[in-house]
């Protein structure tokens, strides 16, 4: 059994910095140290590694080591996964373990085709939003999410946080994103036909999240008077800094000089009136976060919020319209990326069809207390959140996938149209 505290700086850095879930890919880690060993039981050792960067900042990551002397992450080994599941409260033989798809920020395995065990990799102090939300949804009787079966937490030091969770495996045909793309070849109306239902499920999810009105971390709140102005200021700053650092690229020409127009648009869209109650939300809602279950219905997964945001940010109560914008942008991505990814173009009006059905489905069941009081206000708030996403998309794509930058550009031009 290796003592993780005995691992060298190089071994720890190799273990963490090259992993898919290492978040600070654009920074150079200088030093790593084991600062906590919350689990050490002969089969599995969980070590909290503090990775330090030049300017004096650090991040915490969780690694799982096995019983042998190897300094390699052992999470996907059957005996390790089974033991972690048991520690989280779900005994498992660990006979059948398979890793679950591509995940950016955490690691998950399927156990015995019954459970999904997730190891949280980037650790932050505070209540884990996913565990909180899954519990709240269960209490409210929301059926379209996995069932939380157990969790493994530590009280620190160095920090109080969740280490792993275990949920029921949802039997499904696949994720919304992949199914949508696959369908472009033979049945492009696959998503448009299911978007109304997706809207209804989303409305039910928000209603369930708003139902915990005696639990302070969930009780719907009247947003403060300056909530919208703060949001608008944040988006405005994002536009300014994103456009100031845009690469010199002809492909960006269509929007490169439109920063001021977008900033004007922020002000126009921020005139929402009363925006409705703020609630806990999904936080990172898109087609990749919904499964088409074998029972022919949508199931929502992955409630951790956007991995790039800090924990207080991810737990913040917000307008549920922000989730809607995540999904409508996801439709636009699928429609615009169809050619790039599948070689088949999305039919004319495909994105609009999805969007209209989704929003109409949502509004048919929505709790009106959570929304702006007028349809104009609703459309503006949705536009504002879409713009927030678009700015993030533009920054991400120009840095990481320049070929994809046309997607947010098209989206921005579409939003700008009414004001030009």
């Amino acid at each position: 059994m290796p003592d993780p505290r005995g691992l060298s700086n190089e071994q720890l850095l190799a273990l963490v910095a090259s992993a898919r879930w290492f978040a600070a890919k654009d920074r150079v880690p200088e030093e790593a140290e084991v600062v906590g060993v919350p689990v050490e039981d002969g089969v599995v050792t969980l070590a909290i590694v503090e990775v330090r960067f030049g300017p004096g900042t650090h991040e915490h990551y969780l690694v799982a080591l096995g019983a042998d002397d190897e300094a390699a992450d052992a999470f996907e080994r059957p005996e390790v996964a089974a033991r972690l599941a048991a520690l989280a409260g779900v005994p498992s033989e660990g006979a059948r373990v398979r890793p679950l798809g591509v995940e950016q920020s955490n690691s998950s395995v399927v156990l015995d085709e019954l459970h999904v065990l997730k190891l949280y990799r980037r650790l932050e102090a505070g209540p884990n939003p996913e565990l909180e939300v899954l519990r709240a949804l269960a209490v409210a009787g929301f059926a379209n999410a996995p069932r939380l079966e157990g969790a493994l937490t530590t009280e620190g030091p160095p920090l109080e946080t969740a280490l792993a969770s275990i949920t029921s495996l949802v039997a499904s045909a696949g994720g919304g994103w992949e199914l949508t793309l696959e369908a472009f070849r033979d049945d492009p109306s696959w998503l448009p036909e299911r978007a109304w239902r997706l809207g209804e499920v989303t409305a039910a999810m928000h209603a369930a999240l708003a139902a915990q009105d005696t639990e302070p971390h969930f009780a719907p709140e009247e947003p403060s008077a300056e909530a919208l102005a703060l949001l608008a200021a944040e988006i405005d700053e994002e536009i300014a800094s994103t456009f100031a650092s845009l690469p010199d690229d002809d492909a960006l020409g269509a929007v490169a000089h439109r920063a001021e127009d977008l900033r004007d648009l922020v002000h126009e869209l921020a005139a929402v009136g009363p925006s409705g109650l703020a609630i806990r939300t999904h936080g990172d809602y898109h087609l990749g976060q919904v499964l088409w279950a074998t029972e022919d219905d949508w199931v929502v997964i992955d409630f951790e919020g956007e991995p790039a945001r800090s924990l207080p940010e991810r737990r913040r109560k917000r307008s549920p319209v922000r989730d809607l914008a995540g999904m409508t942008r996801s439709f636009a991505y699928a429609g615009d990326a169809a050619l790039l990814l599948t070689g088949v173009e999305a039919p004319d009006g495909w994105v609009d069809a999805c969007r209209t059905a989704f929003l109409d489905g949502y509004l048919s069941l929505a709790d009106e207390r959570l929304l702006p009081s007028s349809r104009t206000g609703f459309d503006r708030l949705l536009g504002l959140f879409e713009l927030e996403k678009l700015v993030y998309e533009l920054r991400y794509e120009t840095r990481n996938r320049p070929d994809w930058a046309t997607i947010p550009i098209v989206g921005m031009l579409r939003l700008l149209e009414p004001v030009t």
Partner: protein
Amino acid sequence: MTGAEHWFEASPDWFKTAVFYELHTRAFFDSSDDGSGDFRGLRQKLDYLQWLGIDCIWLLPFYPSPLRDGGYDVADFLTVSPEFGTVDEFASFVEAAHERGMRVISDFVMNHTSSEHPWFQESRLGPDNPKSDWYVWSDTVHRYEDARIIFVDSEQSNWTFDPVRGAYFWHRFYHHQPDLNYENPEVAEAMLDGLRFWLDLGLDGFRLDAVPYLFEEEGTNCENLPETHTFLRRVRAEIDAHYTDRVLLAEANQWPEDVVDYFGDGDECHMAFHFPVMPRMFMALRREEARPMVEILDRTPPIPDNCQWGLFLRNHDELTLEMVTDEERDYMYAEYAKDPRMKLNLGIRRRLAPLLDGGRDEIELMHAILFSLPGSPVLYYGDEIGMGDNLYLGDRDGVRTPMQWTGDRNGGFSRADFAQLYLPPLMDPVFGFQAVNVEAQLRSPTSLLRWLQRFVALRKEHPVFGLGTYESLATSNPRVFAHVRTHENDTVLCVHNLARSAQAVELDLSRFEGRTPVEMTGRTPFPPIGQLPYFLTFGPRGFFWFLLEEESADA
């Protein structure tokens, strides 16, 4: 109730890189429409403070009080004044702040109580009652005669006769604020109980008000006595033994060489305000020379590793001129208090923006200097939007008017009738709420508020400002204040032009030869540093912060 450790990673040094924000619960936001701010109202404004980038909120006293000294005259240490809400509402505010990643400390008045405190009411009854020596009583005023009078404008003596007991009681501040007698172990124990009460509710620490005056001794000036330090070490040991990540911030308006004693060997207060540097920043600006700041910083002794200075431009008190020479004080009065109403005690009762004549360049420059110095900056509520003051209100009330949220009625502070407000909001055409408010400044990307938010974010990206060494840099131009901060691999060069005219300067940066200065706000690389003096030019009141990068920024 859960403490901060539920929300934060264990980090005993958190305060060293924190940005503090000082506010009056009474002045911030009124949720109950009674004309006075409260904890429920404050809670509603946490999103704003989080957006601004605040790490720690410092609350002025919120204890029951007859309010003859802005709440520093405490009548009960163990509860919340009813106008602010209940202890439960206080605790839920602290919890909500923690949830958003912010800590909360509060004022705790160690030295004295209100004369209305039951302890004093009991003590004055006579020498035979159990609390008779909880305060400092005397039959004569001829004791401790070497102690100065602090509130020179309103008090003639540190002794006041109490007709009930027929004796004089000792008070370093107002005559309605009798000093506690720390020679009595029961008093020390009762005050420790008070601290524990709030720490158990989740509070992250205290700003210890008026700590130099806890003990008295004949033949001394009764300030900074060894017994005071012994008691502070006891407070610290008590907190370290039972709580994690809490902070004690000393208010000791003293010279740096005396203030550092309040850090002890890292076993008294975690933080102490650096009072003397503050007036010298204003002096340097008006004289257009760096010398006053450089001198006081050079005179500041090193402090233990686990300690930090608290730095500020303005606070809830007058701009204190206790820690300057008579000559310097005359200069400050002449430059910053042209109207005699602006003076109070040994200081100037004005807010930041009016002191600087509303000059945006000056306000930015002063913040840049503040944020660049070794210490944790403490902002005063309202200064982030450039609020003004009201000289026609008494004492220090002129700098404690309601926060200006919007251009609506009462500045968006309260829905009560105007006459019900605890103090009238500012309504003058320059600094009044219709001209200066959060709502309007949030909308304008070029506003002071938006600038400051970006600037706070910039400072927080670089722990060097909180953790780094400080080294002043000789310049060829006395109007330019330059220094270098270094922490681990981050080296930052801060250069500020104090003059109201354009200036040029040559700096000897040869030891950084080969490095590229990258301007920090815009990430613009400047020419690499060579052997020759490094040449910079500035606009009026301009400044640059450079990250000295080892490799070219283009690489």
